């Protein structure tokens, strides 16, 4: 009878959690490596259009980003709903692009400055008027390599 009274010893042993920190650390390092902290706070809506023929931007250090789109809903009372250009952390006028390109170029070491790419992250509802103005300003500022930022996918894929 005594064998039924035995406690503890007979049951399934507790699973060792000693390796749990290792697993968590592994995940932690994965996210630490893949993470890219957003440098700017987006003030504009930014739903990028879809495209299939995409190229990946190599060398992040050589890329400067500018954003275009209508201001986010909570900012529309202050800035209106017309699409605007955002440079760094604030709204800007297209005429400020030349100055901005200069500052961005300063941050890149001299030998690689001609390789600078400007990535245009525009909302899909933006009108081409603004984009054309931006392109003209970029031409004036001698920043000729551009990249229209898109999401991978068939064109108009969420509307058909």
């Amino acid at each position: 009878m005594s064998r039924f009274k035995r406690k503890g010893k007979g049951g399934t042993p507790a699973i060792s959690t000693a390796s749990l920190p290792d697993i968590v650390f592994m995940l932690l390092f994965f996210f630490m490596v893949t993470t890219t902290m957003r440098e700017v706070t987006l003030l504009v809506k930014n739903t990028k259009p879809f495209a299939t023929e995409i190229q990946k931007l190599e060398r992040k250090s050589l890329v400067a980003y500018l954003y275009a789109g209508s201001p986010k809903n909570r900012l529309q009372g202050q800035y209106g709903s017309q699409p605007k250009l955002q440079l760094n952390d604030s709204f800007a006028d297209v005429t400020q692009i030349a100055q901005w390109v200069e500052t961005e170029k300063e941050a890149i070491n001299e030998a690689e400055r001609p390789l600078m790419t400007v990535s245009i992250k525009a909302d899909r509802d933006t009108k081409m008027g603004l984009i054309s103005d931006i392109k003209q300003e970029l031409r004036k500022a001698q920043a000729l390599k551009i990249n229209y930022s898109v999401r991978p996918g068939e064109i108009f894929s969420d509307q058909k």
Partner: protein
Amino acid sequence: MARREAPEINAGSMADIAFLLLIFFLVTTTMDVDKGISRKLPPIIEDEQEKPPPIKEKNVFVVLLNSQDGLFVEDDYMDIDDLREAAKEFIDNFGKDPLSSDNPNKAVISLQNDRGTSYEMFIAVQNELTAAYNELRDEEAMRVHGVLYSELAKDDKKEIQSKYPMKISEAEPVSLGG
């Protein structure tokens, strides 16, 4: 005095600390991969005399986008789904059709848009035109080397590129109306 052994530090809370960090990175992570359509803008020509030589009209494929996102190719309305094929035919004409391009090296696609065209439509058209070139390059690579263009070595890629140079001109903005 008797020496006491230093007590072992309890590592049980290590997992908690790691979890805390993990959650922080999970929340802040955006995984923002930068992909897009690359283009090179033409430099501004200030000197009138340095204007590029004129191009024969038959070598220019005019793509027009009006303010209602209507697509017009060589003055005719066209659906976006047909644009890729039309562009391919134009580039790869090699003088077959006397009204179309002489050869891919001379063919230029001129993309004009109105100030009221939507960015989404513009990107869609850019995408189709790029796709036309990419498909032609793929076909040529398949014919010469038996592999897709993207799998070629750098030198072979250059060779194909020189056969089918991507000439898409984004004209200066005009107000086309309509």
